[in-house]
């Protein structure tokens, strides 16, 4: 049976050439992997344009594969453009990605955006990742309800923010729509915003990881020392939330906000699209949460929504074709157009500002480097930080949260130093 199936498999493989590592008749076939669902059609279009202009290269767009499995199997794509986060940063840390520092495109990228890459991981000072799209997040607000409550401008300090909440309350409008039902929504919104607005997130984790197994009361940083104040600030907003946020989920939040149930909503640009699908006429804007009374300290949350990398081990022909495709993707006009069209920000030096009013409130922060990657995004998935935050929101127990985080990181350090 094995034999027949094996033969059948070979026949199947032969019938349709596995797009990957073949070059015949002067045509090089490469796989481009990109799995962000919303923009699959957008990249399909880019790939088609590139293929039309380059008869010697055929790029196939793979949007279903699993990268880990591909590394295990050793059939990585020739070029990848996906979300860069702590998980993908392991590719960097383990040295399986190509060094792109020699490429001219590496010099096009704003240094403070490039620096976001190494906040998670680096490998011998190489440039393994080229940022392609920066998503910026803040507080989404309902423009009409702001007017209705008599709030003339977006708050720029914590006191102004609280004053705005009070105005909403006295106008009988729910100030903030909050959904604790999912374990990620509070983490990526409220939690990341208050922590990021009050402390230097990258610096905290740098010192935290340096402390390693000695993490504790005597180490320079700890969750107990540094996160207690932000967490208390975050809990102090509870009176301004909708009723029963624990029973509300992401979809409920989008729906409620779209129907004008609250003045503010702490979600990223992905939610903007969902809200508009429900109520296309809703006027919205975004501002970064001012977590302190020093307006100059206010920063917004960002993440490298898309970033390009090439695998380190790659046949020369594949590498050459991949670089040609990279040349095409990284043209400033292409990068900027993509980001403009997808409510994101271009990582290139001197890129034009995002013009959509939905997120343009974040322009000055992104362009001047006043941003941070969310405090929750530095936590490995083994530690269910989202669930811990959810529990803290329910019980109000800040000390329980910080000590759980400290001991989880200490255990992680003990394990990884073994």
């Amino acid at each position: 049976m094995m034999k027949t199936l094996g033969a059948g498999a070979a026949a199947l493989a032969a019938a349709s050439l596995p797009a990957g590592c073949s070059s015949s008749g002067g045509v090089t076939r490469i796989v481009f992997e990109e799995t962000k669902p919303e923009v699959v059609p957008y990249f399909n279009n880019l790939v088609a344009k590139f293929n039309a202009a380059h008869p010697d290269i055929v790029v196939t767009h793979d949007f279903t594969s699993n990268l880990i499995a591909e590394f295990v199997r050793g059939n990585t794509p020739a070029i990848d453009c996906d979300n860069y986060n702590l998980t993908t940063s392991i590719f960097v840390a383990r040295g399986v990605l190509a060094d792109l520092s020699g490429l001219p495109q590496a010099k096009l990228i704003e240094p403070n955006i490039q620096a976001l890459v190494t906040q998670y991981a680096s490998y011998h000072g190489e440039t393994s990742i080229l940022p392609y799209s920066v998503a910026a997040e803040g507080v989404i607000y309902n423009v009409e309800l702001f007017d209705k409550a008599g709030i003339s401008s977006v708050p720029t300090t914590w006191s102004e923010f609280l004053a705005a909440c009070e105005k909403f309350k006295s106008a009988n409008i729910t100030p903030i729509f909050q959904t604790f039902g999912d374990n990620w929504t509070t983490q990526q919104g409220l939690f990341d915003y208050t922590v990021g607005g009050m402390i230097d997130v990258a610096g905290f984790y740098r010192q935290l990881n340096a402390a390693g197994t000695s993490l504790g009361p005597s180490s320079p940083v700890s969750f107990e020392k540094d996160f207690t104040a932000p967490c208390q600030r975050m809990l102090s907003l509870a009176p301004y939330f909708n009723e029963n946020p624990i029973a509300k989920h992401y979809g409920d939040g989008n729906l409620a906000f779209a129907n004008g149930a609250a003045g503010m909503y702490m979600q990223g640009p992905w939610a903007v699209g969902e809200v508009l699908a429900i109520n296309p006429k809703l006027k919205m804007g975004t501002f970064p949460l001012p977590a302190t009374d020093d307006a100059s300290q206010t920063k917004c949350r960002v993440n490298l929504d898309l970033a390009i990398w090439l695998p380190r081990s790659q046949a020369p022909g594949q590498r050459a074709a991949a670089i040609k495709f990279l040349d095409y993707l990284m043209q400033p006009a292409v990068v900027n157009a993509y980001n403009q069209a997808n409510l994101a920000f271009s990582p290139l030096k001197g890129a034009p500002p995002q013009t959509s009013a939905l997120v343009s409130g974040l322009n000055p922060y992104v362009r001047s480097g006043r941003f941070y990657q969310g405090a929750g995004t530095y936590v490995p998935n083994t530690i269910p930080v989202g669930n811990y935050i959810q529990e803290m929101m329910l019980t109000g127990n800040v000390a329980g949260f910080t000590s759980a985080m400290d001991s989880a990181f200490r255990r992680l350090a003990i394990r990884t130093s073994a």
Partner: protein
Amino acid sequence: MATQVNTAAVGAPAIQPRRRRRMPDGVRVNWGLTVLMAICSLIVLIPLYFAIAMALKSPAQTGTGTGFNFPWPLQWGNFRAAWDLTDTPLAFSMSLLVTVIAVVGEILVSALAAWSIVRNWDHWQFRATFVYLMLALFIPFPVVALPQVKLTAALGLDNPFGVAILHIMFQLAFNVLLFSAYIRSIPVELEESARMDGCTTLQTFRRVVMPLLAPISATVGIFAFLQSWNDFMMPQLVTANPKFQTLPVVQYLFQTQFTTNYNVAFASYLMALLPTLVAFLIGQRWVVSGIMRGSIK
């Protein structure tokens, strides 16, 4: 007794696959129980109504009230949108290929193995084999996942055939368990008489045992079909060439939390469900029609 058994066993499946022996005319219907079952069935029907209603609403209609309100006006456009999103006949045929191989393979491989084991239970080798196979019931999938990815790639089986083989192997313990329990309830005298008539072991299996195993084979087949058709992890990990990817993997992309328009998502689920439903309705007739009633023991 033996005569009756044999005619039913060998003759029934071929002559009349759907004989209703339990409810010949004139047998009193238990109406009390019927009403009770009808009430119980609401627990199933209400969530199903909910799913269908969800697929026929607009996002604005979704949020109002309990979710049980009748979807009016009906938004057939959701199905259209779902269809456009998953316009993947190739993925559909890949799913079908994997599922057909898995269903046939699972029934055959496990029926043969289970019969061989049960009929040789006196030998410790066969009992040990049984225990050995049962170990797999308790192996968590993640333990074997990455090594299997490596293995299938090394063998050139990083394609739908590999996925199907892994499905067959993964379900082997479960299926052997079901088959062997059923085989134990089949009187061995039947097979003995077949042998006396000169049947070889294989012929006995094919002509006597396999027909007797029809209900449990249908059960195994249904489980195999559902498991194989709906599987996401295995094909996503094992299949190297995205062109050969199965339906759930291709569909998943459009059903992740950030992009989900719940209504279109539900329309898409319901559509993906259709083939399963059809296969299921065909398969369950065999299980429930009670063709074997009275034919065993």
